[in-house]
């Protein structure tokens, strides 16, 4: 039967001496090689420490683990804040957001203070059945689970766009090879856990994003065999198109609102 050949699973899937849990993650050496942009092309990898020896299962596990680590601090913070108020996390966050946007110098003027009051009123409502701390905890857990789900979304959906572009440019790769190697690009995003720190958070997020982009390009190059330039094109073009569409949509909506207000 014609089918994409499975990648060699390598030392990771060997159950001897490795826990079942560890079989869902790449080895530390593979992760280190990826962070150092040391990703060999698929057909030339010889060492089990090579990134290309990992499987897609390990890649998926890596993304889930990295996202859970990155989301832990923000979720704990959200839980603490919501538990103090005694309400579900999204309501507490809504109240905080509305309060932050209400300019204290315009107290009683404009829409923002009214929204802030309403949000505070809603956040002050007690949960229907659970005690406040439990409602806060369960809803914060939901927020935490959303981190790996959104990262998996980016990995699969964005990856498909990049892969299709690579295939159009003549790349010879398989679904498994491509997704396995590109999963390592999510490793540096663990640093976004520190994104909440004022000033430093912006720098950390920027470093994480640039590092992730560099690993993604290296992974695309290793998986597809394309040149560095074409790999950059495949890796970044889908993102650029999405960004342009988002800007165009925002512009259209804003123009429509302004037109409606003027008329």
């Amino acid at each position, binding site marked *: *039967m*014609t*089918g*994409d050949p*499975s990648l060699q699973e390598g030392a990771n899937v060997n159950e001897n001496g490795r826990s079942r849990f560890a079989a869902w993650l790449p080895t530390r050496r593979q992760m280190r090689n990826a962070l150092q942009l040391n990703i060999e092309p698929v057909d030339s990898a010889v060492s089990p420490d090579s990134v290309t020896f990992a*499987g*897609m*299962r390990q890649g*998926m596990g890596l993304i889930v683990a990295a996202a859970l680590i990155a989301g832990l601090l923000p979720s704990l913070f959200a839980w603490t804040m919501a538990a103090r108020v005694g*309400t*579900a*996390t*999204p*309501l507490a966050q809504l109240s905080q957001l509305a309060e932050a946007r209400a300019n204290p110098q315009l107290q009683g003027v*404009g*829409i923002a203070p*009214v*929204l802030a*009051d*309403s949000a505070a*009123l*809603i956040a002050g*409502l*007690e*949960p*229907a*059945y*659970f005690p406040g701390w*439990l*409602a806060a905890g*369960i*809803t914060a*857990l*939901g*927020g935490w*689970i*959303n981190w790996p*789900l*959104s990262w*998996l*979304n980016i990995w*699969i*959906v964005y990856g*498909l766009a990049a892969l299709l572009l690579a295939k159009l440019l003549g790349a010879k790769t398989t*679904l*498994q090879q491509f*997704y396995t190697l590109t999963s390592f690009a999510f490793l540096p995003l663990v640093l976004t856990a520190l994104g909440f720190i004022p000033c430093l958070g912006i720098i950390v997020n920027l470093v994480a994003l640039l590092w992730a982009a560099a690993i993604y390009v290296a992974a695309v190059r290793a998986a597809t065999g394309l040149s560095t330039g074409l790999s950059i094109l495949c890796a970044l073009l889908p993102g650029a198109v999405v960004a342009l569409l988002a800007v165009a949509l925002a512009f259209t909506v804003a123009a429509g609102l302004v037109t*409606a*207000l003027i008329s």
Partner: protein
Amino acid sequence: MLKPKSYPEMMGKALVFEAEPFITMTEDDNPWAEGLFMVALMGLLVGAARVIGSLLLSASMPDPDALLAAMLQGIRQLGPLAASIGLDPAALEGIAQQWRDVGFDLFGYGSGWMRLLWLVLAPMLLIGRWLILGLVCHGVALALGGNGKLNRTLGATALMAAPQMLMLLQVIPFVSVSGLLLSVWSALIVYRAIEVSHDLPWKKAAAVTLTALALLAILTMAGGFMMALITAVWGGAV
């Protein structure tokens, strides 16, 4: 027939596009029946997860009527401001009321016995999607030179239900699984299923999948249009 306890492992391998689960399904003694059971079981589990999730959501959030009252209070406070920018406060109150009646039910928030509908809807929707996609894929694959049988195609494409395992996380309130992720991941699994069951090269398998998805999208839009038309005509008659 396979044992249901082997389903999680098979679905896990299907999620990472390994060939083994697709081969297992096509070589089953009754692939379409196996597929039907697998999809129905997954649908039931997803429905149950939504029901439990909606119960926990209702327990964690304030009473819906109290929430509505707070929203209406805020809208009334906005009254003069809203009017000054051309918004009708009464219309805003109507929208908030509609959200209480329809929107909350949609999210399973305070919806009483309505939430149990998911135990029926979820499996029905999954099975419907699987059958339509499987049949269309089989037809297009044969047209493009595939050599699989319908029974085997349906068996292999049943693994498209694998990404629905993520929906089981909706047992926790406010967990949001992207429809786009589910659709794309399912499409990739269908692509693998067609590759294996019809022994097609990757380009033809991709063409089969894209054609089938396009037809499914057209059918869905046509179905939505018909529903809207029927609603409009029926509503006018009443």
